[in-house]
């Protein structure tokens, strides 16, 4: 993947560890509406660092970059970046938290502290496309600065909850009009649970986009045969073929979530 040169226009610290940069691409543009940068190069240094981007103007080649400095071990990058000109190399593998569809009127997003970072570019993307959005954030977002940022971006359209309870989520989902899509992010068991609820409220597969986050794919312990496999949707044990109802009961010893036998 080629290196693309860009120029820094503006920067803002929007969270305790999160910077938002406005950049203009020099020549070549970034390939997607919303994506990820794999490496940055400036003044001869090359850094691997997670940076998410969102396009804000195609014509003027402008993008916002989101950089989480807590994920950087390099103090040079933390202390001196960004400077006026640098080069970006894209990560083609990245799948955004949400990809807008042509007929989207409104997007409801369920996020938690871990998936918050992936949600940031999507918020700007939906704003730029004039798609109405409503965000429900679970867990204690400990970073007040980022809360202020979200409130500023979304006004009253962001709601903080201690956790997602099925009754509350069902009442949120039941009153929605056609043309409303769902973006569900967070840890896999929560994502699965919310998706199940959404389907039971009449949302179709096309209307729901899920993204589980975390350092690695979640594993499930099959209580029937004790095998441990990667979590997938509609979990069926690859070894004993039992349908599994994946709980959020987690074993640190097995590094897996408990999958109960599901019966009709």
């Amino acid at each position, binding site marked *: 993947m080629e290196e693309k040169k860009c120029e820094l226009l503006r920067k803002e610290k929007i969270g305790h560890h999160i910077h938002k940069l406005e950049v203009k691409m020099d020549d070549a543009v970034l390939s997607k509406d919303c994506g990820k940068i794999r490496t940055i190069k400036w003044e001869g240094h090359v850094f691997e660092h997670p940076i998410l981007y969102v396009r804000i103007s195609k014509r003027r080649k402008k993008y916002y970059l989101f950089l989480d400095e807590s994920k950087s071990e390099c103090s040079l990058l933390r202390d001196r970046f960004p400077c006026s000109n640098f080069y970006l190399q894209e990560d083609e593998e990245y799948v955004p938290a949400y990809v807008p569809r042509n007929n989207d009127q409104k997007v409801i997003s369920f996020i938690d502290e871990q998936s918050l970072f992936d949600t940031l570019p999507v918020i700007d993307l939906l704003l730029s496309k004039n798609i109405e959005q409503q965000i429900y954030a679970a867990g204690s977002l400990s970073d007040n600065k980022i809360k202020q940022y979200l409130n500023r971006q979304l006004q009253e359209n962001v709601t903080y909850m201690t956790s997602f309870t099925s009754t509350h989520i069902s009442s949120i989902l039941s009153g929605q009009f056609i043309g409303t899509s769902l973006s569900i992010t967070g840890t896999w068991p929560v994502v699965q649970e919310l998706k199940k609820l959404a389907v039971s409220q009449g949302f179709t597969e096309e209307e729901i986009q899920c993204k589980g986050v975390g350092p690695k794919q979640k594993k499930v*312990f099959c*209580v*029937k045969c*004790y095998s441990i496999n990667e979590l997938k949707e509609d979990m069926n044990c690859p070894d004993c073929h*039992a349908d599994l109802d994946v*709980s*959020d*009961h*987690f*074993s*640190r*010893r*097995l590094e897996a979530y*408990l999958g*109960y*036998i599901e*019966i*009709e």
Partner: protein
Amino acid sequence: MYHMELTSASRSHAIPSQPLIDRFPFPFKEDKYRYSNNSKALESPLVLDITPEYFEEVKSKRDILAKTHNRAYQALSHSMDGQWEILENIIEEMVEQHPGYFGLEKDGDIWTFYNYLLEEQQTFTLGDPSTLPYEPLDFIGRHVQEDLIYIGHRNGDLYMDAGQLCFPANWSIAFNLGMTYTEFHSPVPHYSDSGLAEKVRNFLLRMEAGKPWTRLNWTLTVDGVLPTFPEIFDEWGTKANEVTVENAGERVYLRVEDQKLFRLPRSYGILFGIHTHLISVEELCKKQEWAVRFCNVLEDLPDYMAEYKGFLSYKPYLVQYLKNSF
């Protein structure tokens, strides 16, 4: 040396038979039930309760252990000292409290243990696991009706370090092994959220030797199945769909766990003994005050608790059955 020999004729009469209704540990002290730290000081500090179901239940435990050992027995290697301490305590209690059922000969560290009820004996050297056919906890658990869990006390926390568990109320020791107290209780609704789990954990951390605690826990089980392992939920879980108003009395059982907690002074762990009792609702209704109270508890019980205990779907039928009975 002399030890008692029981003939098979005397064996069946060995354990005095008292009607279940007269000895069942009915758990409800008032017309409602919520989670609380309902532990009480245990009056007589004994682990064991030997009931007429002894032969049947010990046989069932041994069958389960023979067929699916890792489902019913799990232990981390550092639990061995605690296991020996449990074996010693239980054998001492057996011979002191039930000299007609059990015997012991000591020759220094070489012990010979007699189970007169089952006509078995085992000689072993204390502290040497190779002289027993199973690990100490797994061995002694095969002579008692209780499920035995060893909770280790390390780094200021409590860990599920070993356990022989043949009659679980839908939990898996293969999964829970090694978890902290708070971790293995995390599926219990509102118990962890409310801070109660942490409170009880702190209470247990301060538990002293010689001052054991007891509490009764309860759920319902269809057809009186004792081994309600989550591992075989497809075998017993579907029975809930078969309960009707007409058959509820016969098929639904109140399942009460008499749980006892003992601080082990040597290993500084905790022995958690669970004796599970079952009584059919039909039988329970022979005491009308129990039927009325049980009915009031069920009607007051929040759905999330009935759901967690697995009887939300047939609760209305059971309540109707109870109302018809008085």
